[in-house]
């Protein structure tokens, strides 16, 4: 089995704070991580490889040169190969343009039996790139995958819904997007870390992947950021007074009653 896994390096948004004076994001010192859902996608690919020796797992990302660090982490977890699509011409791509680039990168890397991605990245939370890669590659998709099994030429998956789940059967090749319920990602191994240090990560530019340059980058993107801003901080709240829990509870209940909320 040849498996491609689409990954993204993201700022750890749980570490981001707002500067209360300026209302802007404080990104200094915020670590970059492998996007959590993508780690689940990679784990599932590695499990297929564990069960089917001889399988190959290739991770692919689009991003700045420092995304190499994350790709090394993927190699250290057990991926066989890593590709970084990095080019100023790809910068500022929205999800449509990103999927054009990633689809071209995947095509350039060879033919794959299975393509996995995380459902969504924690910086943008769009969940659009997985399905859009599937469309650009002309492959069927299943999103929100929480259980996976390989049955010959087919995969059988459980797709999570808000009020239950679906069991679906899809012929390979196909694109699946993973959620955290799918598995528990493994840690990097010591031999893996040693291998990653020596591994030569492929870095491809827009010309290398043969993508139509009118379909990538900021200018080609159908969506534009019109404005970005932060929500206005709320007015000062009230610290409920009282010496005991009982007194504090009484002050609160009285305040809510005064506002006719009880």
């Amino acid at each position: 089995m040849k498996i491609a896994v689409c990954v993204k390096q993201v700022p750890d948004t749980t570490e981001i704070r707002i500067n209360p004076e300026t209302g802007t994001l404080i990104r200094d010192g915020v670590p970059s991580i492998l996007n959590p859902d993508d780690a689940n996608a990679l784990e599932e690919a590695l499990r297929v490889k564990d069960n089917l020796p001889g399988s190959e797992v290739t991770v692919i990302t689009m991003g700045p040169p420092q995304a190499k660090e994350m790709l090394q982490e993927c190699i250290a977890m057990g991926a066989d190969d890593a590709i970084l699509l990095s080019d100023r011409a790809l910068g500022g791509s929205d999800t449509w343009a990103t999927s054009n680039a990633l689809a071209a990168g995947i095509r350039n890397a060879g033919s794959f039996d299975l393509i996995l991605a995380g459902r969504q990245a924690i910086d943008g939370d769009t969940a659009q790139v997985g399905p859009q890669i599937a469309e650009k590659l002309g492959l069927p998709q299943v999103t929100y995958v929480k259980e996976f099994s390989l049955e010959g030429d087919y995969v059988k998956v459980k797709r999570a819904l808000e009020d239950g789940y679906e069991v679906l059967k899809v012929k390979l090749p196909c694109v699946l997007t993973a959620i955290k319920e799918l598995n528990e990602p493994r840690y990097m191994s010591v031999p893996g870390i040693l291998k990653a240090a020596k591994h030569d990560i492929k870095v491809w530019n827009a010309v290398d992947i043969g993508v139509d340059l009118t379909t990538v980058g900021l200018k080609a993107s159908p969506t534009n950021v019109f404005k970005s801003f932060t929500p206005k901080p709320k007015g000062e709240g009230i610290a409920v007074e009282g010496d005991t829990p009982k007194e504090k509870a009484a002050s609160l209940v009285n305040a809510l009653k005064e506002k006719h909320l009880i």
Partner: protein
Amino acid sequence: MKDFTEYKNIWVFAEQRQGKLMNVTLELIGEGYKLSRERGDGAKVCAVIAGNGVSPLADELYQYGADMVYVLEHPLLTQYTTDGYAKAITDAINTYKPEIVLFGATHIGRDLAPRIAARLNTGLTADCTRLDINVSNYMDYLEENTTASLNGLDRNDQSKGLKQTRPAFGGNLMATIVTPNTRPQMATVRPGVMTKREKIQGAKGELIKAEVDLTPDDINVEVLEVVKAAKEMVSLTDAKIICSGGRGLGDPEGFKLIEEFASTVGGVVGASRAAVDAGWIDPIHQVGQTGTTVKPEIYFACGISGAIQHLAGMQTSKIIVAINKDPECPMMKLADYSIEGDLKKVIPEIMALWNQ
């Protein structure tokens, strides 16, 4: 500037599961109605419903404000498949040329909309929490609720592009996205954010049966089973009072107290991602960026420090009450009423006083 005059009307994907319309569909018809009138050029709000034997649902769609209903019926649309729905709806969009297409940001909407947008080579904005056409209204919103500068905006601007506002970075940052050069303009919208219209009994509209051209070869995914969870959907979006618990509960037992609290105050149980990730409570209770967006009358945040993802899903609640040992945590700063203390001592006292 491209000529988009042939694109008209605002479409809402009318998501139904097992023949029942999703709440977000009705919310979007309400929003689409408002936007169509904001355009002021005779634009209509139209529901597009796919399935098999779904035309009887048209009446309900009219009652909530739809001017028109496009019905896409075919035996191969009996169950939701990405392939079947994407083809049928893309074909209908190409035939009827809507100006705007809205989807609920559900597990189905977020599966389907990106596929259709990629096929149409148009823009899609995910998980919107606000939509504007009228520039002056948009400026009012920015002025009242955000720190944005109004530079470059003009209240007399008559342009009719859709301004799609959404949270990013877990709600720390908001962005307004536009789709200037392609049509239709497409967006998914978070459930629970938009307001449905008052139901009008007997309301009527125009029904159009659109042609559906599907063969079994078009569908590459076989649906073996659709399982509805035995548990009821937690109606967080409709709740007037929510009692939410986080890591500060200390252990899964803490949710017993939250459940008692909720039943005493007539509320619904919510949870932070930390509590869900710890396995203390089912994910259906999760409030926040990856859970449900809520705006109750009163939100009790018990032992929730206030990670930005959580704040993004509840900060528009009318009154926020935080109970926490740490007076410096973000939730205590955000709260209208903050109670510093041990929630296991404070909550029973609130319960004792509530119904007196």
